[in-house]
């Protein structure tokens, strides 16, 4: 998972997208595997925690908070996020030809897609499937 952070440092959106998919597919494979061990169940839990929380809300958020203030004309993180989320044309037009803005916008949209990801079971990041899968494997002496 350190590659996700590395590609965030590099702001390499293509490799980042591929890396997210790689982890998502492994997570899906693990929770679909009926013979999955307790150790593998915890590997799935680690992926879920990293993809669902640590990466988007800490790593990616920190990256945007550091990079957005470097854009010119100046824009705050809140205004950047609002402009992208609500497609505020007045602001988006200002940065229409700004490659740095476009790169950060794509990065944010990748992270946002992860936060909005719903699996085949209809739940966010397949949490419903994961919770049942994890509960079935939990040892009696778990603490």
């Amino acid at each position, binding site marked *: 998972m350190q590659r996700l952070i590395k590609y965030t440092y590099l702001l390499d959106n293509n490799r980042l997208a591929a890396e997210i998919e790689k982890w998502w597919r492994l997570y899906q494979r693990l929770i679909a595997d009926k013979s999955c061990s307790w150790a593998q169940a915890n590997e799935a839990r680690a992926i879920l925690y990293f993809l669902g929380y640590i990466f988007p*809300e800490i790593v*990616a958020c920190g990256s*945007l908070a550091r990079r957005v203030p470097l854009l010119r004309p100046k824009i705050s993180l809140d205004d950047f*996020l609002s402009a992208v*989320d609500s497609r505020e044309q007045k602001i988006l037009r200002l940065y229409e030809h700004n490659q740095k803005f476009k790169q950060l916008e794509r990065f944010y949209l990748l992270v946002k897609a992860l936060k*909005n990801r719903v699996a085949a079971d209809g*739940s966010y990041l397949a949490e419903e499937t994961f919770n049942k899968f994890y509960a079935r494997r939990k040892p009696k002496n778990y603490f």
Partner: protein
Amino acid sequence: MKISGRVRIINYPGDYARIQDQEIIIVRNTNPDIVLYVNKISAIVAEVGSPLAHAAIIAREYRKPLILGAAGARRKFKNGQIITIDTARKTICSA
């Protein structure tokens, strides 16, 4: 911006279906299930604090007033209680 309304506490995804028009939801974080009900709500109060939390993304996409980082809010307020939120000052007051 100040908004007043009735509280709806969201503890589980199933609670979204109980949302009534113009309620202010208080939630730890939202998940994509909220999309079906987001037009009914007047504002979101979230216990999580990241601007990239799902609640923050939804609030910006649907232009809903939002207070982030309201730790313990689900315990402090009750369903049906009337509250006023001030998004500029980031305060929540009971009426």
